């Protein structure tokens, strides 16, 4: 049956380009790239790389950003879930935070930049009345040398992601019973949860945390918008080198991409050590009988941090929405002096093409990813084998290997194959990143599907294929569409793959937005950020509306 080809195809699709891309990066890093005149292996690219001024700082920044973003976002999610899981507040917050997952990183970063800059919205709302600032103070907030603003920008986007994977793991632990037990033993809510439930949850979300570290240590768009400039993070410098007109810089850039791999690996290694240390600390506390009963402060801190992260993203996007219709808006006016649709009208005709590419690429990549995922999952049922942990690592591979490390190589391969800047190449590049997310969001609902329906169908004489088509797929419509919406949102937000594989000819809303960000025109950025946000939101809307329409006559299928 067709399904047999599912798993090998998926594995080839996810790991193939990464391995080929890595080869295309590693070989030039050691001087081998005949097309550019590198006929023999040498360490010259490495010497050139280490001779770059500030390279150690860039490396350190990348590692630091990766670790800090993961640490802070995981801590917020952990304390929030520990303190509030199972309560009404938790459910409300969950509905508030989940949509943020679909906000592309770049859009959230623009919003944050305008919010916290000395001439930004926060300062405008409080100046000069509260602060006495008639002019913006000369404070280095955005682009700060330690990258704290960049880390904040990453944290507010990683929190929804980690929360959602935690939510997926939560039903698999006995929450209510453990809560009751630990409470009766006198443990505080947080301590009871962390001692009793967190270890099994963490082991399930561990890969997602790794993905966060790898992403944060190698991100380009957020770092370019919020990160330090003198020097920037390694990933930002890599892209600069890659785009240098000097031929020899390609070798240097490849060595830099390998160094990026090392930076992400370093961050991951440090993280593993931190895991050990914190596990040991937890054991000590638990064995010491510490109950941490008075955790009210921490509980509320968890709730506040969670609300704040959602609020920051929402407020930033709202500010950009105002900018998109602003006339002259000078500091310290809290609102623009005049409003106009000029920017929208001027931008509208220019949006058509990137919008078409965004939609075409996103839909094509999502449909292919969905098809492959269904093949893999159906194969699982047939063979009775779930993908083991090792295969799971492969699914995560595109998320764990820094994009820059293999995309350069992949770009080179596409170029040699004369495939660069074509829509199929772009769809393929997007698929590499869309597939894992689709697989991850669909596999849990698929695996928890009640198999007794299959048994009943078989008992009524339906073939396996018919049971799949008539029973399981319709019943899983909602989950399938949600997975598709997630995949589409991922595709809309992709920056580096679009820029490298699209070669500037195929532009999406996100690549246009980041290019425009360099111009600092907040009005136009506002328009693009709004679209960046609206597209995935539309996807999720469709994912909720269609099942509601289909199942309006089926009471048990309503939510």
């Amino acid at each position, binding site marked *: 049956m067709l399904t047999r080809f599912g798993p090998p195809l998926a594995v080839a699709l996810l790991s193939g380009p990464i391995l080929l891309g890595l080869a295309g990066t590693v070989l030039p890093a050691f001087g081998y790239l005949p097309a550019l005149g590198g006929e023999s292996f040498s360490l010259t690219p490495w010497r050139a790389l280490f001779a770059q001024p500030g390279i150690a700082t860039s490396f350190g920044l990348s590692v630091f950003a990766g670790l800090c973003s993961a640490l802070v976002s995981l801590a917020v999610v952990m304390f929030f879930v520990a303190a509030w899981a199972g309560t009404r507040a938790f459910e409300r917050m969950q509905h508030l935070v989940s949509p943020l997952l679909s906000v592309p990183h770049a859009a959230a970063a623009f919003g944050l930049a305008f919010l916290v800059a000395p001439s930004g919205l926060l300062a405008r709302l409080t100046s000069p009345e509260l602060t006495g600032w008639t002019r913006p103070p*000369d404070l280095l907030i955005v682009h700060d040398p330690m990258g704290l603003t960049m880390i904040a920008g990453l944290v507010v986007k990683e929190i929804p992601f980690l929360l959602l994977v935690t939510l997926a793991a939560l039903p698999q632990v006995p929450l209510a019973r453990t809560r009751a037990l630990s409470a009766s033993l006198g443990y505080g809510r947080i301590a009871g949860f962390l001692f009793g439930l967190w270890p099994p949850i963490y082991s399930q979300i561990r890969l997602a945390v790794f993905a966060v570290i790898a992403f944060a240590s190698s991100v380009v768009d957020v770092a370019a918008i919020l990160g330090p400039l003198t020097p920037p993070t390694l990933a930002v410098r890599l892209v600069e080198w890659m785009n240098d007109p000097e031929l020899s810089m390609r070798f240097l850039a490849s060595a830099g991409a390998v160094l990026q791999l090392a930076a992400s690996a370093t961050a991951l290694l440090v993280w593993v050590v931190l895991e050990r240390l914190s596990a040991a600390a937890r054991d000590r506390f638990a064995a010491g009988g510490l109950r941490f009963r008075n955790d009210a402060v921490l509980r509320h801190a968890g709730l506040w941090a969670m609300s704040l992260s959602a609020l920051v993203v929402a407020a930033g996007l709202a500010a950009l929405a105002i900018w998109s219709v602003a006339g002259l808006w*000078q500091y310290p006016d809290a609102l623009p002096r005049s409003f106009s649709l000029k920017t929208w009208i001027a931008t509208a005709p*220019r949006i058509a093409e990137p919008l078409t590419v965004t939609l075409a690429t996103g839909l094509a990549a999502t449909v292919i990813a969905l098809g492959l995922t269904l093949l893999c999952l159906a194969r699982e049922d047939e063979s009775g084998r779930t993908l083991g942990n090792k295969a799971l690592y492969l699914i995560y591979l595109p998320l764990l290997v820094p994009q820059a490390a293999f995309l350069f190589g992949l770009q080179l391969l596409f*170029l040699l194959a004369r495939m660069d800047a074509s829509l199929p190449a772009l769809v393929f590049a997007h698929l590499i990143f869309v597939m894992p997310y689709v697989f991850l969001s669909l596999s849990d609902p698929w695996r928890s599907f009640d198999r007794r329906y299959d048994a009943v169908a078989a008992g009524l004489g339906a073939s396996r294929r018919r049971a799949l088509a008539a029973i399981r797929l319709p019943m899983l419509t909602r989950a399938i569409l949600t997975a598709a919406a997630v995949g589409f949102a991922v595709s809309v937000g992709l920056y580096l793959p679009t820029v490298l594989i699209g070669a*500037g000819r195929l532009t999406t809303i996100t690549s246009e937005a980041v290019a425009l960000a*360099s*111009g*600092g025109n907040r009005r136009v950025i506002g328009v693009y950020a709004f679209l960046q946000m609206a597209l995935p939101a539309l996807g999720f809307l469709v994912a909720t509306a269609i099942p509601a329409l289909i199942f309006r006559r089926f009471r048990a299928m309503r939510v």
Partner: protein
Amino acid sequence: MKKTLLAALGLAFASTAAMAAELDPKDWPAVVAEAKGETVYWNAWGGSENINAYIEWAGAELKSRYGVTLVHVKLDDTANAVAKVVAEKAAGKDEGGSVDLIWINGENFASMKRQGLLFSPGWAEDLPNWRYVDIEEKPTIRTDFTIPVEGLESPWGMAKLVFFHDSARTEIPDLPTDARSLLDWAKANPGRFSYPQPPDFIGSSFLKQVLSELVEDPSILLKAVDETTFEQDAAPLFAYLDELHPVMWRSGRAYPQNYPAMKQMLADSEVDIIFAFNPAEASSAIANGELPDTVRSFTFPEGTLSNTHFVAIPYNAASKAGALVTANFLLSPEAQARKQDPKVWGDPTVLAIDKLDEAGRERFAALDLGIATLRPDELGPAIDEPHPSWMERIEAEWKTRYGVAN
């Protein structure tokens, strides 16, 4: 079957290659005929909306007049387009390249010319509209940053370094008149001046302006950098920057990324003096509601940097005929007058007004240059661009000294 198909494909390639080889700008009707139906991928900086809108207008005109489809490939750095051509040459893609036209000047042109990446022989002076070009009064049209152009690129606009300030906030008598007094002003007003981070071309231009003013013997700037004396030659520039950076916006620890970012900073009151390479930038920003109408321009009486920007065609461009038609259209009095209109862009023309016919002269006479734009006779003398090697060398040195300072 397969073989015949391959043979047919081979023939098709061979014939396009032959056609490309025969393309002769002197036979203009043939160029126009061949351009029809072609798509021109124009790689041009895309960081400014009014420029993007102008390019779009040009695209619409080209489509309706010549059947040429213009696609603006928006770059954040022109070097990226050069890199693309370099990569294609390395990959052996000598035909059907992805870049048809590049907005270019200075070291990018020098680098492409040196590496043989440009469509040659010189074609620009064979364009029908070349007859209007002001080669007498505007010497930078034939020498781009001291490098002879030799018709390898077609002029598109003129640039001159001009400063802007908001007269509602900064009084006129305080305004600097040269790099030295700018430094004094910055010391008196800490945190109120900055320049875009090199290698942004406006930022690098500021460095060249200071270098040109402070260098002991200006004639050395017309030649390639002499490595043995570079340190000594550039010492005044870096001494100047060492003094300037501590009193600059964010104490020189962060920089605006380019001119539009500086424009936003002036609007946000983050800085008080900005500059651009186009005398009409402020008028155009006022017209767009981006700056208040109290913004005014000034230049240095002793002169500021001035140059010409061009369009060039890569040697492997897929649509050379379309690119030639585009370059010629951009030189037309109509396109040039529209470009000089501050409501559209405000970029000064490369044409000599007295060479135009009546209708052309009227187009230019009808332009309202805007409240914040200096008249041509108020712009002050022009300082020539140094040899491109200076820019490269200074940018590298800048990065070592300030690009990594934390």
